[in-house]
Structure formats: structure tokens, C-alpha cells
């Protein structure tokens, strides 16, 4: 299973880098808590559970976006992209490894965000946790693919939210409504598509 070994090595590399630099995760944690605090003041007093759950999803999507814009920064600054592409592994392993690293960051941020949401607004039930977990898969895989696209352009970080937010709208619809099967379907479709198409995105001809 050398493919999985490659993926694990690439993901471990990103996690180790993060452990040394401690850049992405602290900013994601601070961002999500700050966003929840802002939403507390943005909402009128006595707003119901329905509005609050929407805010949770908004802050999660934007937190993920924060992590995704950082995802390929190291590759870009160190010129490592070309080296990664030349590495003797399947190109989709680069995508999967990066997605897993981003997924880990996002889950860490949510481990803080969900209890914080529970404390600030109202407790989250198991269904919401499951929906968040399913949504994370879609967000990280699609976001990593689009992150690799955005980083190749002149606009760089500016481009990723434009590319990604329209894709995130079905996730928010499914998440707010608690449609777990819809989120699972979204994941299945777009993970396959991203997995199949990543090699074209990094193909430097």
C-alpha cells in the first residue's frame, strides 16, 4: 500500500511543519472564537436557536477558509510545489495528504468551537456534531483542490474565497437543515471529482 504510505508521509510532513511553526492552528482557534463573540453582539437579544445554528455554520466555513488559504503557503514561499510534483508519487496523494492535514486543523478548531458555541449560545446535539464532521470532509477536500488552483494565480489568497464560497453553499444548506444524507452525498460526489481531477491542477506542462 505505497499510495497510503505516500499520503501518510505527506500529511505527517504538514502536521510536523505546523507543530514547529504554530501558525495556522492558533489563528484558526482565535478566529473562530472571535467570530462567535462578534455574532453574539450582531444578533438581537433573545434570538432563537435557528439563527444561532446558522452562525455556527458561517463561522465554521470562514474558519476553514482561513486554514485553506494558509494550506499552500509553505509550498509557494519555499518553491516546494515543483519538488512535490517531481516526487515519485501519485499526484492525487499530494491532494489527499494536504486535505488530511487541513482536516486535522479544522477538527482541532471545532473541538474548541463547538463547546464555545454551546457556552455562548445553546448546546449542540449529536446530529449537529455528525453534520459538522461530514461537512468537514467536503470542505477540506474541495477547499484543498481550489486552494491549489488559487495559489497558482496572481490574485493568490484573494481568489480562494471567490472560488470556494459558492461551493460551500450546499454544505451550509445541508448543515443548517441537518440533512446528514445530503452532506454524505456531497462528500461522495466531490471527493471523487477532486481526487480524479487534482493531477490536472498541478500538472506543470
Amino acid at each position, binding site marked *: 500500500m505505497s499510495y497510503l504510505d505516500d499520503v501518510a508521509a505527506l500529511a505527517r510532513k504538514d502536521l510536523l511543519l505546523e507543530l514547529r511553526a504554530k501558525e495556522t492552528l492558533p489563528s484558526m482557534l482565535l478566529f473562530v472564537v472571535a467570530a462567535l463573540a462578534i455574532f453574539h453582539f450582531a444578533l438581537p437579544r433573545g434570538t432563537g436557536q435557528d439563527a444561532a445554528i446558522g452562525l455556527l455554520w458561517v463561522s465554521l466555513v470562514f474558519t476553514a477558509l482561513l486554514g485553506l488559504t494558509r494550506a499552500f503557503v509553505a509550498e509557494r514561499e519555499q518553491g516546494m510545489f515543483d519538488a512535490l510534483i517531481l516526487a515519485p508519487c501519485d499526484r492525487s496523494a499530494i491532494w489527499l495528504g494536504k486535505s488530511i492535514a487541513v482536516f486535522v486543523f479544522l477538527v482541532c478548531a471545532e473541538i474548541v468551537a463547538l463547546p464555545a458555541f454551546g457556552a455562548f449560545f445553546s448546546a449542540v446535539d449529536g446530529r449537529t456534531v455528525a453534520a459538522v464532521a461530514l461537512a468537514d470532509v467536503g470542505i477540506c477536500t*474541495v477547499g484543498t*483542490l481550489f486552494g491549489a*488552483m*488559487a495559489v*497558482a*494565480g*496572481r*490574485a493568490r489568497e484573494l*481568489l480562494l474565497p*471567490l*472560488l470556494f*464560497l*459558492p*461551493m460551500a*453553499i*450546499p454544505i451550509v*444548506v*445541508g448543515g443548517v*437543515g441537518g*440533512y446528514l444524507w*445530503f452532506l454524505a*452525498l*456531497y462528500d461522495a*460526489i*466531490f471527493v471523487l*471529482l477532486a481526487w480524479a*481531477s487534482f493531477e*490536472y*491542477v498541478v*500538472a*506543470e*506542462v
Partner: protein
Amino acid sequence: MKLPALAAVSTGLLALAGSLAFFYAPTDTDQGLSQRIFYFHVPLALTSYACFAWGAWKALRYLRARDERADIESYVAIHQGVIFGSLTLLTGSIWARVSWGHWWAWGDDQLVLFLVLFLFYCAYFMLRYSLDAGPARANMCAVYALFGVVLIPVSFLAIRLSRSLIHPTVFTSHGPQMSGAQFFTFCVCLAAMLVLFATLYAVELAGKRLDASLRELRELLA
């Protein structure tokens, strides 16, 4: 088909569609005259879906065959799709104003999701203009176009999930809920819009080809 013939057919069909919509189709008992917006609004929407699908098909062709022409064709089709899409949003907004009293109906998921697609494909242009021309750009645009065409049914599903009752569901599983005359008019309008798309698509492609041959000529002469 030759371009002038195509243009003539689309002119004829559009004229026929317009006159059918105003003089032949019966006035709707529920909504009155404003229901006639339907005959242009819905074909515009369906045509823009067709444009996006055609663009994705060409994108797939590009990824398969690495044909530079397919990249340009995909770009032109999506460009047309965005034009038809913005017309859909405009006519839909006017229809919303006349039948529900607001320019924009957030409760109407179909209109909102059209906005989503519109945003998605506007980002396509941002992506395209942010990259330098070449195979890498063509690859990324093709992948993005493929994501778009998959996003359409997913969005459609999301519509059905949080469906509101405000949008008239004309096409149900029991077939079109229209009288024969209305349906005939609708079909002519749809055909007219599709041929209009084909014409504009051909015009744009001819322009791009002309650009390319002029560039070649300039290089030969220089």
C-alpha cells in the same frame, strides 16, 4: 451550419417566439399578463444551464485530448452562460416584483441558487484572468468548469430540500402543468433561445479564430 444561416434562423425563431408569447398563448387566469414573462425567463434559465453543460463537455474534451480549441470553446460557452444567467436573474427579479411585490425573493430558493451558480461562474473569470495563458490555465479552468456542472444538480437537490411554496413549480412529475397552447409557445421560445445561444457562440468563436489568425499573420510579417 453557416453563420449567416444560423443567425437568420435565430432571428426568425425569436420573432416567432415573441409573437406566440404575446398573441397566441392564452392569458393566465391566475397571474394575468405578467405570466408571459415565463416564456422568456424559463428558456433563458434552461439555455444558461445548457451553456454551462456544453462548457463542461468541452472542458472534458480538453482534459482528454489536450486540444487548445476545446479550451477556448469551453470558455466561450461559459461566457455565454453567464450572460444568459444574468438575464435570467434580471427577468426573474422583475417577475418577482410584479407577482410578489419584491425585487428579490430570498424565500425563493430557485432564484437564490441561480445566484449561487452566477457567483460560481463569475469566479471562473477571476480564475481565468488571474492565471497566465497556457496549458496550466486551460487545465485549471477545465477542472473548475467540471465542478460547476456537478454543482448544478447538487444545488438543485438543495432547492428541493429547503423548498418554499412561493415558486410556481410548472414541471412536476405529472408532466408540464400547462395548457397545450402554452406548452407549444414555451417550446418555441426554448428553441429560439437555444438557437440564439448557438449563434452567439459561433460569432464569438469566429472572432477568436480571427484573432488567432491575425496574430499568426503578424508574426509571419514581422
